[in-house]
């Protein structure tokens, strides 16, 4: 989530710089643009491109002498812990992305109506985004403790207590609920902004043509929302591949490896086991997976446009 957040800020900075007034002649326009852009570019280079390059470089070196080789990658593909992490991450992604986008879209549609106290609801939905992920994780950890409020709520409606984060069967789904509680409000705002952009005339015309609400949603809302939806789909998918803080704080990958998402596995491999090159290779694989999935998503969305 932080990735999406900061990169959108970067673009905002870039827009501002490009739109700088043209009247000042003392310094050339290009120089001003360069100065304003410099912090963002330096930050991207130093904080993202350089470490990623360094990790990839490390991942292709083996042995004490640091020879060039693929052994870090071949080891990973034979390592049961990596297999389990990959499986957990794919299962997590398959569930969490559609779930979050459906929730975000549903919330955006509801909030787009003229509700009494509308701004209040919008604020409440966005509120979890303003809380640091680590704080949210700790709060939700308390909620889902075996003796916590979630089980108390279940008890009042006559349901048996659940293990939540303490059982391998439920832990991953509990993490999905928690990261969704943290993230959905953020994605909702993009979709809500998209909904506000759709010209009312389109709906009026549709009503005159006798379209029911489902048809309006299917043939006006969805196609008109394609751009924000593409962004949310891509950014949400990437963000969910990079989920780390809630896992590290709440389960550390357990119980029995059930929530050992790939980011946590990379952390444990690099910093707990001290296998930096293995962790670097795993980072390389993660980047490759994310790039491939994002490319497919872009292709699908542009394909849908030309139909």
């Amino acid at each position, binding site marked *: 989530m932080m990735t999406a957040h900061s990169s959108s800020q970067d673009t905002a900075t870039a827009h501002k710089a490009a739109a700088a007034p043209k009247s000042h002649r*003392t310094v050339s326009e290009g*120089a001003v643009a360069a100065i304003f852009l410099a912090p963002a570019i330096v930050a991207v280079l130093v904080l993202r491109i350089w470490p990623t390059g360094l990790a990839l470089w490390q991942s292709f070196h083996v042995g004490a002498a640091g020879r060039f080789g693929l052994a870090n990658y071949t080891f990973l593909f034979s390592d049961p812990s990596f297999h389990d992490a990959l499986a957990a991450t794919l299962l997590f992604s398959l569930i969490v992305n559609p779930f979050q986008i459906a929730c975000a879209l549903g919330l955006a549609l509801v909030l787009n109506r003229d509700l009494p106290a509308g701004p209040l609801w919008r604020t409440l939905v966005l509120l979890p985004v303003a809380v640091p992920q680590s704080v949210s994780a700790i709060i939700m950890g308390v909620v889902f403790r075996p003796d916590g409020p979630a089980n108390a709520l279940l008890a009042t409606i006559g349901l048996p207590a659940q293990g939540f984060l303490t059982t391998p069967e439920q832990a991953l789904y509990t993490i999905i609920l928690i990261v969704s509680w943290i993230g959905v409000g953020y994605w909702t705002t993009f979709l809500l902004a998209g909904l506000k952009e759709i010209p009312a005339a389109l709906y009026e015309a549709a009503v005159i043509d006798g379209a029911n609400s489902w048809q309006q949603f299917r043939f006006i809302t969805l196609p008109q929302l394609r751009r924000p939806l593409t962004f949310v789909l891509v950014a949400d998918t990437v963000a969910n591949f990079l989920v780390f803080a809630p896992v590290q704080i709440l389960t550390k990958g357990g119980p029995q490896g059930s929530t050992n998402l790939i980011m946590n596995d990379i952390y444990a491999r690099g910093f707990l086991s001290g296998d930096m090159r293995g962790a670097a290779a795993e980072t390389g694989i993660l980047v490759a997976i994310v790039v491939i999935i994002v490319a497919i998503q872009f292709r699908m969305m542009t394909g849908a446009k030309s139909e």
Partner: protein
Amino acid sequence: MAKMTRRQIMALSTGLLASPLIARFAHAQEARIGFLSSQKAGAFDAVIAAFEAANPGIKMQAQNVPFDQLNAQIQARLGAGDTSVDVFTVDEPRVPAYAHKGFLSDLTPMRGEIEAAVTPAALVGSSFKDKLWSFPFWTTSQFLFFNNDLLKKAGLPAPDSDPAKRLTWEDLLTNARTAQKAGAKWGFAFDQNDRYYELQPLYESQGFGPGLSGDGLLTPALTSPGWVKTTEWYRDLYASGLSPRGVAYEQMPALFSSGQVAYMVAGVWHARVFRLAKELNFGIAPMPYFAGGKPVTPTGSWTIGVNPKSARQDAAMKFAKFLTLDGNGALLASTIAPQPPVNKVAFEAYLKRESEAGGGNTAAFAKIISHELANTTVSRPRTIGYVVFEEIMNRMYSDIRNGAEAKSSLERTQAALTAAFSRLE
């Protein structure tokens, strides 16, 4: 913003870019020594104050992180060449791995000085491949702490403090169940409930080995019948409800302090917290052993390492020596975090202080520790694979404590360790 000339803009941006460098330079002038440990904030305040008073011009900066994050911090920071950590605590069995990775300054030239100040057993914990890599600092032992009031309520006698008359695990668990029936919330608990450190003696007491074998102790040996049987015994403590599930080890001593546990095997340093707890009437006895086996107790503790990349080696060494080789410094360092110092002078003073501090509750303090350290200790395996071994083992115990099957967990852990050991370079 008013009009700015090109020169003004250049000056401004140069200034902005240079400011961190200037700050760093100013920082370096002060000889500030970073001391990273996993003790609670404030644990070393007294010894730091005494050191700074004796060494004007050196400022200590204590950096405290939770135990679970210490290893990650050391690997990340020292591995990346960070010099803001000059001195750090190193658990004895981690010395080989950190020495192997180049995280520790070679102290072999100071061997004579160190040998003269500390107990002989402590030197082993700081050595690897005939070289000395860290300053011996603390040692550890365990007590069987018991709650007198809960035992009285159940009609149970207080365990004997004589090491020759220590309880067997079989008798202890029978008594613990009786105490639980008579009202104790929990009959028995280990304080470090999922730590290899405290559980290793269970296997060693019966001759089942440390779980590692072979050349350089890099072959996991976790699936023998003895290991499976003993791990099932551990699992059953929690499955049967005798010990509490889902409590983090940091919170375990508080359960005993608040009178919820009848018997607890815990580090000797907890005696301080327990005697400060109001309305807790407790006693100490030696750690139990399995009938037919031999008494075995855990040992080993923190040593003090110096970062070889430290820009202020001299000042860093000076502090490390004050903590370990100076009798007064070593005793001051064992006050708020009262682990037994291995400095010979400080050790005697420590035993006297701790035995007397708790009145009748801790009268046997010196007697038990002295006996255990001389007769029953077993060190954790000394291998370059220990760091990853401990991380993976502790995760396994945590899973088993919370319900995972013993045998399949041991098999999975065996495979994970084999894979991880193949990566040691």
